């Protein structure tokens, strides 16, 4: 594990992307494939433990470190609030190691030490973990504790990892990306196949990397002639890739998660399609309605792994498709968008199925008329417009220039800061997580939590203010005197029974600090509720 620990330390210290890639390349070169496989899993956010393979709960780890270090539970908790990361807190609290155990690779640690004790009785797991702690130095302990507590979160994007793998193997990044998509087991065979220059038989259900859009921040006319662009509505649903190959259907979300079983009506429709790969949006949409239901309606469907008939009837879903990536075994991604759309149109019309709709082209004469249509987005239940270059190929990842999302401006309210909590990681021991409230009669009712939107200088200033205006402390949370007003932006408001205020805000964020306003000037709950759709 020393080799991986050295990589972890290097990545933790580096901030420049190029330096990080170099560190990854150095690690991958000459790494035994059985260790590399685990490293890739961990760097991709994968976990060793989990619900089905219990190594140690966070409660047990706290308890064991309390016993081993002689610090009472409350002091372990206080320490955790200061550090903001459990794995690191454990590392800092453990007494110095009394020996240095011989080094073992990542694979040996995970499959030889941790897996054998998974789901064992607490005493068995405790004995092995406490013993392991005693043979590791601080740097190794941190990595080991990260294995126990969950993901590594080390600031390495999938893209960067794939670039490093491509550099070492001499393969295209796209090839690596495709081979890494989906579920894979961290075995030596996987690592070897991943880096192999021989063509690999891809699993038939392997999806293509999604093409992502960048927000359009410049004025739309700066894109040039409107006729060079293909416009569509920006749907507010779940991005979905539908794969029908070799009589098998797979549904993939953008989080590279298979959604099989959750949406049987989509799978039934897919089975009727010719062999193809479609890109589109999953939406809750009643057959008779002119527009889809809000995103929140999908929540009930996402949560159900095997929805019953009642759920299916209450919230019917459709797939609104906007791209065709593969047809009858031919990869179409290099073809221009217009050509792909023509084939897609034929496909959708030919099938004529209620669960499959074509995302219509929004035809406009000019950017002005596009802007005017965009203003109707909220009434149409969409998030704005998508602007795609008509001749563009389908490229995985967020390549700037071909796909733009031209979203409507967010709804805004003025709200009062009422609670603050310290952040995690980089922001630990700074108050960066804020709760905001609006007026309901004489009372301030919390309506949104926001973590972003302030500059570093503002965060520091606000942190100081919070410390000197604390009313009460509830563990890590402080209530503050309700004085400061912030303008919040959000994507939507939904009626919610789970929230005390009766509403739930979507993607709330801070737009600016309204130093010109007093708490009394903040908005009313009724105003916010009237925005609900």
């Amino acid at each position: 594990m020393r080799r991986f620990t050295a990589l972890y330390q290097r990545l933790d210290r580096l901030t420049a992307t190029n330096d990080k890639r170099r560190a990854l390349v150095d690690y991958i070169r000459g790494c035994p494939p059985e260790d590399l496989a685990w490293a890739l899993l961990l760097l991709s956010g994968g976990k060793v433990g989990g619900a089905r393979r219990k190594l140690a709960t966070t409660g047990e780890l706290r308890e064991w470190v309390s016993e081993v270090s002689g610090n009472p539970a409350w002091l372990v908790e206080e320490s955790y609030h200061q550090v903001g990361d459990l794995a690191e807190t454990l590392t800092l609290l453990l007494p110095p190691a009394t020996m240095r155990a011989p080094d073992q690779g990542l694979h040996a640690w995970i499959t030889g030490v941790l897996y054998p004790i998974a789901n064992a009785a607490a005493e068995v797991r405790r004995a092995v973990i406490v013993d392991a702690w005693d043979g590791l130095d601080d740097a190794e302990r941190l990595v080991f504790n990260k294995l126990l507590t969950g993901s590594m979160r080390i600031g390495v994007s999938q893209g960067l990892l794939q670039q490093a793998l491509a550099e070492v193997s001499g393969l295209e990044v796209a090839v690596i990306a495709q081979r890494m998509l989906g579920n894979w087991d961290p075995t030596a065979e996987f690592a070897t196949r991943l880096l192999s220059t021989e063509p690999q038989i891809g699993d038939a259900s392997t999806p293509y990397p999604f093409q992502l859009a960048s927000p359009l921040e410049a004025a739309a006319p700066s894109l040039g002639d409107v006729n060079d662009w293909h416009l569509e509505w920006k749907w507010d649903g779940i991005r979905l890739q539908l794969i029908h190959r070799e009589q098998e259907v797979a549904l993939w979300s953008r989080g590279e998660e298979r959604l099989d079983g959750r949406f049987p009506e989509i799978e039934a429709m897919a089975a009727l399609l010719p062999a193809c790969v479609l890109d589109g949006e999953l939406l809750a949409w009643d057959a008779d309605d002119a527009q889809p239901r809000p995103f929140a309606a999908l929540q009930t469907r996402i949560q159900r792994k095997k929805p019953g008939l009642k759920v299916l009837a209450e919230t019917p879903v459709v797939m609104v498709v906007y791209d065709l990536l593969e047809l009858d075994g031919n990869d179409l991604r290099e073809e221009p968008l217009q050509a792909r759309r023509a084939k897609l149109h034929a496909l959708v019309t030919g099938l004529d199925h209620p669960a499959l709709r074509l995302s219509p082209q929004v035809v406009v004469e000019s950017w002005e008329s596009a802007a005017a249509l965009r203003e109707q987005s909220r009434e149409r239940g969409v998030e704005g417009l998508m602007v795609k270059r008509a001749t563009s190929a389908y490229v995985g990842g967020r390549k700037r220039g071909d796909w733009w999302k031209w979203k409507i401006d967010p709804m805004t309210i003025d709200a009062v800061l009422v609670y603050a909590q310290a952040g995690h990681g980089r922001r630990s021991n700074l108050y960066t997580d804020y709760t905001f409230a609006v007026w309901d009669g004489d009372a301030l009712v919390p309506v949104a939590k926001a973590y972003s939107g302030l500059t570093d200088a503002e965060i520091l200033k606000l942190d100081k203010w919070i410390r000197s205006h604390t009313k009460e402390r509830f563990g890590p949370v402080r209530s503050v005197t309700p004085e400061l007003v912030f303008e919040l932006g959000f994507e939507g408001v939904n009626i919610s029974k789970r929230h005390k205020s009766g509403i739930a805000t979507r993607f709330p964020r801070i737009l600016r600090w309204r130093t010109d306003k007093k708490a009394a000037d903040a908005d009313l709950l009724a105003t916010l509720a009237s925005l609900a759709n």
Partner: protein
Amino acid sequence: MEDLVIVRPEGMYCPPGDFYIDPWRPVDCAVITHGHGDHARVGMREYHTTSQGLPILQWRLGDQVYHPHEYGESFTLGDTQVSLHPAGHVLGSAQVRIAHAGRVWVMSGDYKRNPDPTCAPFEVVPCDTFITEATFGLPIYRWPPMDEVARDIAAWRDECAAQGETAILYCYGLGKSQRLLAELAACMQGPVFVHGAMATGVEVYRAAGIHMIETVKVSDTPKGADFAGQLVLAPPSAAGSTWVRRFRGAQHGFASGWMRVRGNRRRRNYDRGFVVSDHADWPDLLRTVRETGATRVIATHGNTDALVRTLNEAGISAGTFATHFGEDD
């Protein structure tokens, strides 16, 4: 019985002695524990301090009415007998011992127990009530041996040298920088380059006979000088300033007890953090309280809550003073 030290708007006050310790507002009589800005301020009519700390106060506060005292020397203030004892924090730093009517109170000021070649080591002063700092009052704060850290810094400079980069190490100008320069003398070759704001402090220490590695003021180097492969010491306020821009291709490190927690380093965007503190770590806070034999403890600044609760659970009556002291390290 009245407490020997209480908090007033002006600062910590000793009623029977009619003097203040490290006051934050102008008063007649001030006893100063050490030269850091949150403890030594201008505006006092008279200053009592240690002989070793005098040059530091003269540097920081200019011309004032000073009464220097040797460590351990007893002097009378009002109805009390006062003496100053080494705190091991920075050159000339002191604990204040107050004896009155058979009772002894000690105010620690800032202190540490780890060896420091630039100042007299902390002395345990038995007392009834011990007023302690608690800057690092949590068990996550435990200091590594200083010689190890000094070797890490030397190795970091070599790493930077191999990549043609400058190693800029930020640290506080009074105390920390001189301690590092003294420790580095044992494990690497000089010179070390220093920021102008630090140079005066280094001179004060050299004049006091403290042995440190050879230093060169950055401002004394010719325009366009190449600092690749060199170690540069600068105050934290220089980070991100135009002054730093002259070092093209540099790594930035910070030497502080706060660097024990990764989040502190990452938040400030330092490449490296070196755990070097001039305050007591958690085990030493507890050890010191125990060794003084105090039955009552008052914590002044830092993570006071955890220390107070730990002591109370151990049967030592503990509370806090709300002071204006900072938590820089």
